């Protein structure tokens, strides 16, 4: 019997765009008043939002293997997507990485966190990996991360450097304080 293909699990992806180009692109797309107004306008028009989200999906899927979690961690992970880890780890590699840096689940592929570490260190952003990444909000799968980012909703996806006793995100719950 043929083995069952395991394509349903996320597969680590080496980005098709360099870390340097990614950081440069981010600088161009950084949050400002104009982008905030644009994002707000787009979200008020469902057809426009669908088209915008499709564009984000196609480009980020091609470049990073994006799965549209809707809460983009790329700026803090050397622009290697942690959602392509089969365990979807947001805070660094698991203990099962092989001595050659291969994924435990897909041994033919490089661990995405090894890729992230090398890219972040090589471009002077290694300290980003020390930040604590908060748990995902699973309601946001399939939504545009860029629209959220421009409107400030992604501001606390991860902790600031040196933050000592960070709190979990509270607005996710039923009774935020």
């Amino acid at each position, binding site marked *: 019997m043929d083995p*069952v293909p*395991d394509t349903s*699990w996320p597969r680590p992806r080496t980005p098709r765009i360099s870390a340097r180009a990614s950081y440069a692109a981010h600088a161009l797309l950084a949050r400002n008043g104009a982008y905030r107004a644009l994002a707000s306008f787009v979200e008020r028009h469902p057809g426009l939002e669908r088209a915008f989200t499709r564009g984000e999906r196609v480009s980020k899927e091609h470049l990073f293997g994006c799965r549209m979690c809707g809460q983009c961690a790329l700026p803090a992970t050397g622009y290697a997507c942690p959602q392509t880890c*089969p*365990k*979807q*780890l*947001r*805070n*660094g*590699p*698991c*203990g*099962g*990485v*092989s*001595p*050659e*840096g291969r994924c*435990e*689940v897909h041994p033919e592929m490089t*661990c995405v*966190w*090894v890729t992230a*570490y*090398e890219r972040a260190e090589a471009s002077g952003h290694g300290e980003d*990996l*020390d930040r*604590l*990444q*908060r*748990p*995902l909000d*699973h309601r946001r799968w399939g939504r545009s991360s860029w629209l959220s980012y421009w409107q400030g909703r992604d501001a606390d996806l991860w902790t600031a450097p040196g933050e*000592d006793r*960070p*709190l*979990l995100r*509270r607005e*996710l*719950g*039923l*009774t*935020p*304080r």
Partner: protein
Amino acid sequence: MSTSPGNGLRATLAAGRFAVTAEIGPPRGADAGAVVAKAEMLRGWVDAANVTDNQGAHVRMGSLGASVLVQRAGVEPIMQVTCRDRNRMALQSDLLSAGALGIPNVLLLTGDHPRYGDHPDAMPVFDLDGVQLTWTARTLRDEGELLSGRDLAGRPGWLIGSVENPFAPPASFRARRLAKKVAAGAEFAQTQYVFDVDGFARWMADVRDLGLPERCAVLAGVGPVRSLRVLEYLRTGVPGIHVPDHLERRLRGVPSDRVAAEGIRVCVETIDALREVPGVAGVHLMAFGYERGVPDILAAAGFSPDRGPAHDAPPRALSAVPGEG
């Protein structure tokens, strides 16, 4: 949370005494006696024993139930909790259950992927990762609230532990990854098997440079390699274990009927060497399937059976378990 002052993992670590933990793998089935038998082999020899959570992604009796059995048998449990099988709601409620039952220690980890387990067709959950689960536990205990922000009626009191693999790539990130877990709330950490003491010492130097031993007790993982079959399994069948060539040469260099004894000798020597590494707070002895050998290994390494809950009084958990006392 131990039955008498001065005993248990928390007190041992607080006193700066070299700690010893071991591991109890629950059985595949509902046989409470199998858990008790393993606990009785360890009683007195360890400060606490990990109770694994579907280890290697193989279904076993749950770690909470087995932890209660271990505690009743007079051994302090460390309940392992992985992110593989439960979402954040189930993880929080199981942690609260452990608090209610007086489980004194929890060990929080990401967990092995189901791919290599006995249910590869299962849904891998991984709603949280090991760092986030550690963070969640501290939020429950120290903030007294759920991830949602809702207040708890009664806070759990367990000690929070985690794990790290000093040997897996990226090598220069591994101490920083432990630092993330410490920032998230880990108060002790057990490591993957150490067969390469020099490599471990290099990682430990990074750990000291980050100031972690003052905030988090590091227990080095050790275990006997009792056959060439086990050696091969550790080398190729378990993700993230580094077996150096000199160990392989040594075990292959003795007659086949002497491999088990040689493997135990190596384990004792490793424990001796690890005691000399600055910042190491204890050892975690993993002798899966060989619990009966734990006392001999620890005795050979110079430890005495004076650890864990006092044995003249019934363990405190008895009165906390419904249907008991």
